[in-house]
């Protein structure tokens, strides 16, 4: 909306009176005392002014025109001439306004309102679409500092209205380049932003929007700016300029804040107007200038108030803005942020029309950020709230797809089956049928998967997944061990799709089928042919490994080794690389060619210096040298490898090398107790050297931790690792006290931040075993925070879980134990984590889950030992809690019958078994059980023995 000119009359009564008085005096002086005409003219002027004030511009103009026709010209009539132009302008008679202002300029070339008159003429030209003239006049005004900003703004408006956007932009850039210091400059910036959008200049738009929002204090009409900001965002969004759109939406105010801010602005505007009025009352000389400001403020306040009132009647804009924000975040690859916004929309605005879109957007974003479980929950919510919603089909499909994403094939199968039934017309039926087959395949339901794929072929003979389905039928047959059928299907696929996506894999799978049929010669031939056909295929490493397997199986060991070596070099995954490398090594070892083992790993180190297997390879070089009898060389290679890496706590295999070094030192010392733990140390062919203290030997090779303590030439981690090596020496020499002492020193003499992952875990365990839980926590926490990818992370999960369990923070304990077993690869602590989880579940009285966990522990052969005894005992406890005393008793009896070595559990099991008999009313059997406990000499000092005696006495008395 254009600024309305209102020069001359004002709301200020003092000023008006002063002006009227001055002009009226002039008019009164113009006539002879007898005529009375002067008095008439003065009255006419007063009336015109009153009419102007009342907003009756037509009458005011007519009276002023009449007055100026009749009155003799005088300089004193300057206000009347100017007011006449203003009256015409305000009465929208722009042609006459131009004439009147021009007349004013002719008569008063240096008058106080000359600039205002030019401004009025320019505005009148603009309003009558005389763009060229308006532009020229604004151009003149621009040089006058008083009018510069307004002139530039209106000049730009003129050009924009005339379709000259480039000129408008140029003018507005001139207006805004010096900074946004005035409200009119802010308006100019806003207009400029609009023009940038139209031009598609996103960068400049965003920059400008940011600047505008940095100067919000100068903006009076926040609603207008907010609307514009959102509109700019929409325009940018439509042009796929999502970054810019997002900037706009982020800059937009939500409803509550906008209303509050706008009310504050209105108060401020009113205050400004009151202040201007006060100034005008005090200093009438400023009337001309202030009247403009005051009138403009009055108009702006009225307009803004109306906008606010209308705005308050409208539904909230906040959900709309949030929806736009969420979409923009999504499009700019800020998927997590889009989840945040969609979720906020869902939580804060449960009843809005945008809910369906928000819910769907949330599902898509969650799926994108790999949050399948949450996505699944919202899919269900969507289908419950919007069964026939516009995205119901897509959500139905996603319900199964996200379950697949979560590797929950069972749920995926259920969901896809449900959706295929409930949405028979779904456009995604083809995809769902295909994925249903995949879900069954993933579960190992091969027959059902094949049946599903065949249903697909029948229902969608020209479906989009037809090639995949045919390939998968073959794959399913292969996985289910139907090699003959698999081969037929693979041949069928290759014939139908000779250049298909899965041809190379199919040919490899054909070779696999032949390998299964022990057709090793054919496998070798096929693999060679495959290599010729698909030279640079990523699968080459795998194919060469298969070829090597076939050669090995047909006793062509040299050929196999060559193929394995080529395989690890060509491998694109660590899995294939390690498989082939170590398979080659095993073949060398089998032939006793330890020199070739060393060569193999040295070659690997040269080939793959950045591989994570690097230090393992060094270990094997040392090991191979030792087997070759080159003990000194082995020690030197190992020592060099250790020294190069000892100061880097991230090199987790250093500890493996240290263990090897300890073994080599023990071997050299001839201490002879390398024992069962020194399995990698070969027997030496050379004569036994004179005994050497392995500790001294170790110090000589690596440096002494004690001697270097406090010196700057050895880092803390290096000293700690040497201590660890000493502990390993002690372990190998079966000196548990010394081993424990060295590990205890690790825990006490070093800060957590000085240790490597394994040492943190060992130190934490040591402290925990001494009930120093707070100190232990620091070590575990350091391991957890600083080495989240460590292979020894299970120490932290297990330790922190145990500490939480001891503190009865059961939820936290369960969290650690569950994550430790499910979310990370638990190497050394899997048994302890599973036992911990089971104990926690039992403590939480989640009997069924606890039972499953204890059964799992008891079932693992490799874990046989105390944990099995404990699990059996706990399974008895679970049955006892259920009041199933007979079942409980079976478990307790199994403990003292089958696990007699674990005395604490045997003692407890006797007691609980006897108690079970008592509960079952079998007093005699109970008494026998107590007696059996007491007969066991090894249990004589246990508290349970005393208790058994008491119970026995009680039973005897009762009988």
């Amino acid at each position, binding site marked *: 909306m254009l600024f309305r000119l209102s020069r001359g009359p004002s709301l200020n009564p003092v000023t008006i009176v002063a002006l009227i008085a001055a002009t009226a005096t002039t008019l009164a002086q113009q006539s002879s005392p007898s005529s009375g005409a002067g008095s008439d003219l003065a009255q006419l002027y007063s009336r015109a002014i009153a009419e102007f004030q009342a907003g009756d511009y037509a009458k005011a103009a007519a009276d002023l025109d009449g007055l100026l026709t009749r009155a003799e010209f005088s300089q004193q009539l300057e206000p009347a001439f100017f007011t006449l132009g203003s009256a015409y302008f305000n009465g929208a008679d722009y042609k006459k306004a131009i004439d009147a202002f021009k007349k004013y300029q002719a008569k008063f070339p240096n008058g106080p309102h000359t600039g205002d008159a030019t401004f009025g003429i320019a505005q009148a030209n603009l309003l009558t679409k005389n763009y060229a003239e308006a532009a020229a006049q604004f151009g003149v005004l621009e040089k006058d500092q008083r009018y510069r900003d307004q002139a530039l703004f209106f000049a730009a408006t003129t050009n924009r209205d005339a379709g000259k956007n480039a000129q408008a932009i140029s003018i507005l850039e001139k207006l805004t380049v010096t900074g946004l210091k005035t409200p009119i400059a802010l308006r100019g910036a806003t207009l400029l932003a609009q023009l940038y959008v139209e031009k598609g200049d996103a960068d400049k738009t965003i920059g400008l929007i940011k600047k505008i929002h940095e100067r919000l204090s100068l903006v009076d009409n926040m609603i207008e700016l907010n609307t514009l900001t959102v509109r700019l965002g929409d325009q940018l969004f439509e042009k796929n300029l999502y970054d810019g759109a997002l900037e706009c939406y982020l800059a937009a105010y939500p409803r509550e804040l906008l209303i509050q801010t706008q009310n504050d602005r209105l108060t401020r505007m009113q205050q400004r107007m009151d202040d201007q009025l006060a100034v005008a009352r005090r200093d009438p000389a400023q009337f001309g200038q202030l009247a403009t400001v005051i009138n403009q403020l009055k108009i702006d306040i009225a307009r803004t108030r109306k906008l606010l009132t209308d705005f308050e009647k409208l539904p909230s804009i906040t959900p709309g803005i949030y929806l736009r924000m969420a979409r923009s975040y999504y499009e700019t690859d800020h998927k*997590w*942020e889009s989840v945040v916004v969609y979720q906020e929309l869902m939580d804060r605005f449960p009843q809005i029309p945008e809910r369906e879109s928000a819910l769907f957007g949330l599902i898509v974003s969650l799926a994108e950020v790999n949050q399948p479980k949450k996505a699944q929950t919202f899919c269900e919510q969507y289908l419950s709230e919007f069964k026939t919603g516009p995205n119901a089909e897509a959500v139905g499909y996603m319900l199964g797809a996200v379950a697949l994403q979560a590797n929950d094939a069972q749920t995926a199968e259920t969901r896809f089956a449900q959706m295929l039934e409930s949405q028979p017309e779904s456009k995604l039926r083809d995809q769902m049928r295909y994925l249903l087959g995949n879900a069954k395949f993933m579960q190992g339901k091969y027959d059902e998967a094949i049946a599903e794929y065949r249903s697909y072929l029948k229902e969608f003979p020209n479906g989009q997944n037809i090639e995949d389905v045919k390939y998968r039928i073959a794959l399913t047959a292969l996985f289910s061990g139907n090699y003959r059928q698999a081969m037929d299907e693979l041949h069928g696929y290759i014939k139908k799709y000779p250049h298909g996506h899965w041809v190379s894999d199919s040919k490899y799978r054909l070779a696999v089928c032949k390998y299964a049929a022990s057709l090793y010669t054919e496998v070798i031939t096929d693999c060679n042919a495959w290599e010729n056909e698909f030279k640079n295929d990523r699968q080459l490493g795998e194919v060469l490994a298969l070829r090597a397997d076939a050669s090995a199986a047909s006793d062509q060991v040299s050929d196999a080794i060559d193929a394995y070596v080529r395989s690890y070099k060509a491998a694109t995954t660590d899995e294939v690389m390690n498989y082939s490398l170590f398979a080659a090594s095993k073949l060398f070892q089998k032939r006793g060619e330890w020199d070739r083992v060393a060569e193999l790993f040295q070659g690997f180190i040269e080939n793959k210096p950045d591989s994570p297997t690097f230090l393992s390879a060094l270990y094997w070089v040392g090991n191979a040298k030792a087997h070759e009898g080159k003990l000194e060389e082995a020690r030197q290679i190992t020592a060099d490898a250790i020294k190069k890496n000892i100061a880097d706590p991230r090199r987790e295999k250093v500890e493996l090398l240290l263990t090897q070094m300890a073994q080599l030192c023990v071997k050299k010392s001839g201490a002879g107790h390398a024992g069962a733990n020194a399995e990698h140390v070969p027997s030496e062919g050379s004569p036994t050297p004179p005994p050497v203290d392995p500790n001294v030997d170790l110090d000589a090779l690596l440096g002494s931790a004690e001697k270097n303590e406090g010196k700057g030439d050895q880092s803390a981690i290096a000293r700690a690792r040497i201590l660890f090596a000493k502990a390993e020496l002690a372990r190998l020499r079966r000196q548990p006290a010394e081993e424990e002492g060295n590990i205890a020193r690790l825990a006490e003499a070093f800060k957590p931040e000085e240790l490597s992952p394994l040492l943190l875990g060992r130190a934490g365990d040591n402290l925990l075993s001494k009930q120093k839980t707070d100190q232990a926590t620091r070590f575990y926490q350091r391991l957890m925070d600083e080495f989240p990818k460590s292979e020894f992370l299970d120490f932290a999960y297990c330790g922190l879980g145990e500490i939480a369990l001891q503190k009865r923070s059961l939820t936290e304990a369960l969290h650690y134990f569950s994550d430790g077993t499910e979310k990370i690869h638990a190497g050394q602590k899997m048994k302890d984590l599973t036992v911990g989880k089971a104990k926690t579940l039992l403590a939480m009285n989640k009997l069924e889950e606890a039972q499953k966990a204890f059964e799992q522990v008891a079932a693992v052969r490799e874990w046989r030992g105390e944990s099995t005894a404990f699990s059996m005992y706990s399974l008895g406890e679970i049955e006892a809690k259920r009041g199933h005393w007979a079942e409980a008793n079976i478990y307790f009896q199994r403990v003292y019958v089958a696990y007699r070595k674990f005395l604490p559990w045997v003692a407890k099991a006797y007691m609980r078994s006897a108690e079970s008999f008592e509960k079952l009313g079998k007093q005699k059997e109970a008494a026998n059980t107590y007696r059996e406990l007491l007969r066991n000499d090894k249990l004589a000092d246990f508290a349970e023995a005393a208790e058994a005696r008491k119970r026995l006495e009680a039973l005897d008395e009762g009988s």
Partner: protein
Amino acid sequence: MTITAYHKSAAGLLCFIALFAYSAGAQSIILKAGQKIDTLGLRRDGDLIMGKVQVGTGSGEVGYKAEQIAKIEFPEPRALKAATGFLTQGQPEKALAEIDPVVRYYEPFKEVAGAWWAQAAAIKVSVLAALHREVEGETLTNEILKTVTDPETARSVQLRLAGGLIRKKEFEKAIAICNTAISQSGDTSILAEAWIKKGDVLLAQRQFDDALLAYLHVPVFYSDEKEFLPGALLGSARVYWRLDDAKRATKTLNDLIAAYPRSVEAALAQSELQKIDNHK
């Protein structure tokens, strides 16, 4: 009301200057009866709050019982912003030097509405936390909670307790404080802090996905709360890394360092970057 004569003396003048060092400008007592008394300075005398008033050309003191007073209009002490600024820049010692005199000055008026004690003490709690003087911080927090009547101030102070609870692994209590603030507060700075603390709790519980969503509330909805952005960025970067998104973690950390180079979090971000680099 008690009126005492006021004698101009050197000691009196010094007292006057000291008083205004932390409370520049007029201090007006608003009585529950509606009367407003403009004073030239205030002091506590037992049950009475004494205000120095102009009496003709001289001055005197008027005293009111605290329960008679609806509010005292104190101007906001500049030290609040200064201390917060130092804290953000990782200079807790300087922050303490700024805030401590303010806490001491307002201590006698702490139960009176309008006194800045609670706000100043709340900042001091954060400063003490930064100095690892958590026991003192907790004592002060409990003292604040006894006196505050404004629910937003109470929420803000309780949020400061959340940090200690996280360290003590009292996660449920900490989460409850955050959730209360999130559901009840209308103050964007409190909301921003609550979301960060909630992120901290969830991160400590290794609930990475939810932690990330909590941290991201701050840049998404409260980006004007600059004080909290570094914490939110650092938290979200840490979670990205835990979620195996090293690229996004690195970008977030670099953004943090570029935007808030003098913040404590920027220094921490450097070591996080090093950590990520080490694992490449």
